[in-house]
């Protein structure tokens, strides 16, 4: 008789343990499988950049990516903000190049799969994106004529082996750009059309080389992927592939009640689209309206898909051709970021507004209205335990 209390305790323990078993419905399993890295298709060719998969171009691109000579004062490279040992981001709320920018540096894993670039999608190809910081006065702060001269002086032979002969720079200004300071703009305007095309051609190829390098930066498998693979194949998750009860609850919430998977879908945990989720502005930064202001910028970019520097035919330009141009939903809409590795790279959001995942989850649960435009998210009842579980699950995407 003395054993009864123990037997009873054991029975209750067994019942409770049963509740924590990874018990997923078929629909849940299907969703989990769609999020696993094994569901990521192979990287498609980029027909707008015929050097995208040329190894020598990627090698030159890698050199340029890490070269501080690729800036006005020789102190900033792509890798200044896209740090190789930090998921190609910089842990800062806003990036700091030559000056202080107003946006968070984006990590680069899987970047070649994006249809749009930057938080607001103001560029439509990886190679056109790579050119933008080079001339932004707050980032690398250079000008395209100076970059072309620099390439010839420093990497002329490597460049010509890949892209063919460099143009004759005789009589061309050392500093000129349509986006530069007044002197650089004046110098650009004084150039002939052929000279401008020649400089733009070299400049576009710089972007194409850097893009070729960046195509190699892909997401790595995580604990979640090992768990998902075991779940889908019916294997018993072993070692770190086994999820704790809290992580399982977090995953169930992520794909269920918390609606995270609505936008953070697919193996990269992003729908590659733009949404207003009511993220508050940062007080001391210039006004930022997100996607609505990026539309005109990408349309005006001479390096966009419909411009003269695209390789291949215009059938690759569907995203630009059929882009939404003027809709209220674009106001303060920002790109859905991938959540892979997010747990180990605070702060969060387009200007580093939140310093922890707890704050991010609290923001989405509260769903405060947007300061401008309409937030797409709705308030959510989440207990403290559920919030902690969501964060625990997100950590499995960074281990």
């Amino acid at each position, binding site marked *: 008789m003395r054993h009864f209390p123990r037997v009873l305790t054991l029975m209750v323990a067994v019942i409770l343990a049963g509740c924590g078993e990874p018990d997923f419905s078929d629909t849940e399993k299907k969703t989990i499988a769609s999020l696993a890295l094994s569901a990521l298709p192979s990287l498609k060719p980029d027909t707008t950049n015929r050097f995208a998969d040329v190894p020598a171009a990627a090698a030159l691109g890698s050199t340029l990516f890490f070269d501080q000579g690729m800036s006005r004062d020789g102190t900033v490279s792509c890798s200044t903000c896209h740090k190789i040992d930090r998921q190609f981001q910089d842990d800062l709320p806003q990036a700091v190049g030559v000056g202080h920018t107003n946006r968070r540096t984006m990590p680069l894993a899987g970047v070649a799969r994006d249809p749009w670039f930057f938080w607001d999608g103001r560029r439509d190809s990886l190679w056109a994106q790579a050119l933008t910081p080079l001339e932004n006065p707050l980032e690398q702060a250079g000008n395209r004529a100076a970059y072309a001269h620099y390439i010839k002086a420093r990497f002329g032979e490597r460049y010509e082996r890949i892209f063919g002969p460099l143009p004759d720079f005789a009589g061309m200004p050392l500093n000129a750009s349509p986006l530069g300071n007044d002197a650089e703009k004046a110098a650009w305007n004084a150039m002939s059309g052929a000279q401008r095309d020649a400089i733009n051609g070299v400049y576009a190829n710089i972007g194409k080389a850097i893009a070729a390098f960046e195509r190699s930066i892909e997401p790595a498998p995580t604990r979640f992927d090992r768990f998902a693979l075991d779940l889908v194949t019916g294997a018993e998750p072993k070692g770190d592939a086994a999820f704790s009860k809290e992580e399982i609850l977090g995953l169930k919430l992520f794909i269920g009640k918390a609606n995270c998977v609505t936008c953070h*879908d*697919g193996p990269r945990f992003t729908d590659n689209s733009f949404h207003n989720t009511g993220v508050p502005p940062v007080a001391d930064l210039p006004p930022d309206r997100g996607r609505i202001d990026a539309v005109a910028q990408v349309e005006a970019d001479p390096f966009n898909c419909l411009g003269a520097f695209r390789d291949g035919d215009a059938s690759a330009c569907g995203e630009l051709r059929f882009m939404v141009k003027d809709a209220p*939903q674009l106001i303060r809409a920002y790109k859905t970021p991938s959540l892979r590795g997010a747990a180990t790279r605070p702060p969060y959001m387009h200007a580093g507004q939140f310093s922890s995942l707890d704050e991010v989850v609290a923001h989405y649960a509260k769903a405060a209205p947007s300061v401008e435009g309409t937030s797409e998210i709705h308030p959510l*009842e989440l207990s403290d335990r559920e919030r902690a579980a969501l964060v625990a699950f997100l950590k499995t995407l960074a281990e």
Partner: protein
Amino acid sequence: MASLWRYLLAGLGLAALLVGILAVVYLTAPRSSQPAVPDVSRTKNTDNGLFVASFSPERGVVRQGELESWLLTLKTKAGAPVEGAAIAISGGMPQHNHGLPTSPQATDYLGDGRYRIEGVKFTMSGWWQLHFAISATAGSDTVLFNVVL
């Protein structure tokens, strides 16, 4: 013996309590706000009955996150193809306060009442709506197609 009965009774009591708690949890769980399953038929009469419209992916399958071409086929009630129609497309996700992520356009007339609609992209799973405003010599009409991914 008396203590055995006491333990059994306690066990039963605990089990009953567990059942009660579970019942309360399940009965008070927030109901899914999904409305009745939307009508996802691919062929419909237009709203004023002017045309019969069919809407289907050109390659037969719908793939989430990809730019795709769809075909809108317009016939009269008598089955004659509707030619020279002007088509305006809008839509979105009624449950998420947002419109379409792209601006699909009718880019080509393929004959036999078939119009190619390019630039269709469904970025999320869920309930999408595509609304067509159609203007042809027979008159103007509208039709709404639901796509659930």
